[in-house]
């Protein structure tokens, strides 16, 4: 029976930032392709993402399936499972790891979702294009009507928490239905000091939060609440108590640091993804999700 390790999430799962030194140099120290075709980087992103590294270095009998898509939110991340038609879920086994994207992102679909030109996404038979989502952030805007309506009418802690819980439950239900193991991790969601992401869920989505198997949550046994917190910590670019400022500090750098890039929002570097893969492996061993 085939064994798969399936990664769900955003750019932190797709592998943005996981580039070789050669790529960084050829882009003058800043690789953030936006608005133009980024397909030339995709193979390298997948190769160096935690999804592939986890299988390459630790779980060698698993085949990696990277369903991460840059920029998407958690509903879209979970929905990716339904676009993955290269895995026969009924006749396979494995682990689905949900690396949570930003809880503030709201996903719809683009007008044109079918593939126009052949670009293998490595997880489907390519009926639909990889970037099929229209994701919005809750920022008032004169030009982006969706963002404007979203920010003024929908966005609230209640909405964000329940939307994320729904996404996790969707993925968890899918995993359970197909007898896959399920793991939840947090890429970069940070709450105010002293508040863990799970506390925030309990406060704003109390009705459904205990439907989630929190034993599957990576950060209930790590000393950090998100992978960005851990990578900033080992990068030693910022004092621990100021890690929340990482966004602007990293973006102001002219070249990536050891574990995080200087992209907007910062992404793990090639070494950063290795750290994430190692941490996921240790946690899964500790929790006996894998033997």
């Amino acid at each position, binding site marked *: 029976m085939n064994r798969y390790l399936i990664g769900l999430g955003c750019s932190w799962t797709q592998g943005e930032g996981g580039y070789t030194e050669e790529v960084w140099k050829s882009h003058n120290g800043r690789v953030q392709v936006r608005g133009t075709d980024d397909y030339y980087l995709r193979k390298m992103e997948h190769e160096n993402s935690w999804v592939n590294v986890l299988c390459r270095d630790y779980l060698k009998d698993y085949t990696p399936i990277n369903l991460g898509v840059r920029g998407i939110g958690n509903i879209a991340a979970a929905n990716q499972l339904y676009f993955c038609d290269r895995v026969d879920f009924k006749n396979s086994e494995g682990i689905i790891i949900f690396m949570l994207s930003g809880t503030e992102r709201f996903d719809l679909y683009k007008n044109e979702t079918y593939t126009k030109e052949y670009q293998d996404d490595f997880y489907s038979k390519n009926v639909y294009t990889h970037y099929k989502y229209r994701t919005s952030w809750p920022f008032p805007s004169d030009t982006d009507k969706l963002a404007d309506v979203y920010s003024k009418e929908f966005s609230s802690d*209640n909405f964000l928490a329940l939307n994320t819980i729904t996404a996790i439950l969707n993925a968890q239900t*899918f995993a359970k239905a197909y007898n896959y193991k399920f793991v939840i991790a947090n890429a970069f969601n940070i709450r105010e000091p002293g508040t863990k992401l799970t506390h925030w869920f309990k406060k704003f989505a109390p009705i459904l939060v205990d439907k989630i198997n929190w034993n599957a949550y990576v950060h209930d046994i790590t000393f950090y609440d998100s992978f960005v917190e851990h990578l900033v910590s080992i990068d030693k670019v910022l004092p621990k108590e100021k890690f929340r400022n990482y966004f602007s500090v990293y973006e102001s750098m002219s070249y990536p640091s050891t574990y995080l890039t200087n992209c907007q929002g910062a992404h793990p570097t090639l070494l950063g993804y290795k750290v994430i893969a190692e941490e996921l492996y240790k946690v899964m061993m500790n929790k006996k999700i894998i033997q």
Partner: protein
Amino acid sequence: MLWTMNGMYMPNNITEIHSSYYLSDIAFKIPNVECNITFDFAHNSERNNYLKGLATLDNNWHYRHKKVIYKYNSLGYRTKEFDEINKENFFLSYGCSFTEGTGLAEDEIWCSLVADNLKIDCLNYGKGGQGIEFIHLNVMAFLKNSSHMPKFVIIQIPNAQRISTRSLENFKTLTPPSTAWERHKEKFPKDFYFEEIDKKRSFYTYFITLLNIDLMFKLCKIPVIYWVKETELSEKDVTFFFKDSKIQKKFILADPVDSSIENLARDLGHDGPNFHQSISNKLINLIKEKL
């Protein structure tokens, strides 16, 4: 939600349900509805159209003689209390106004006809103006909180273009522009809807939510049937999403019926008793055959 005096309520085109959602609830509590209250009309336009019917239709007009009242339970649904049903012999119905029965007497609604024919109790969680996400949350709440499970579930699929945002305290649903939309044009410019929430975009959201609901019932071993009044699903999309699923065999398309004005419901907008009789007959046959 605009709540008015004079014994009626008026769901507007952008439905906001400010819910106080109790942990023990098996469905969203629709707020501001007094427990077990009875209305004569669902909204102003129903009353106006009823008067129009009295003035223009002949003496045989069904609703000249048929009494229609709206009685809501303690959660705000047009159905019995959970404590009043036979907990060993009941089914759940979900949907929008076609299931709430806008313009119809309670005994004319499709789910009442199914219940009568099969001698089984029905808990009807249809709610006018709502979309698939509302049903999704209600299903999750029921499966989490109910002490008893139904024999089967029937879901009427609402308009796919309704986009809801999930929140426990502020559940909002956007519905496609119509004449009533004009009331909200300052709040939501109409072009926002056409640009951002067209059929294509909302279709995937709706479809994948449906697949998530189906998996939940599958895990609980509860049979579920879906019916839809009309659909514009493309063959390409249906082929892709139904590929592994038995959902297609559980999907019923309602037959068209004579929709001349005298055959409509009392609000002269929704389908009348003939339509409900027709779809209930199809459902009853399928239930007897398959379940």
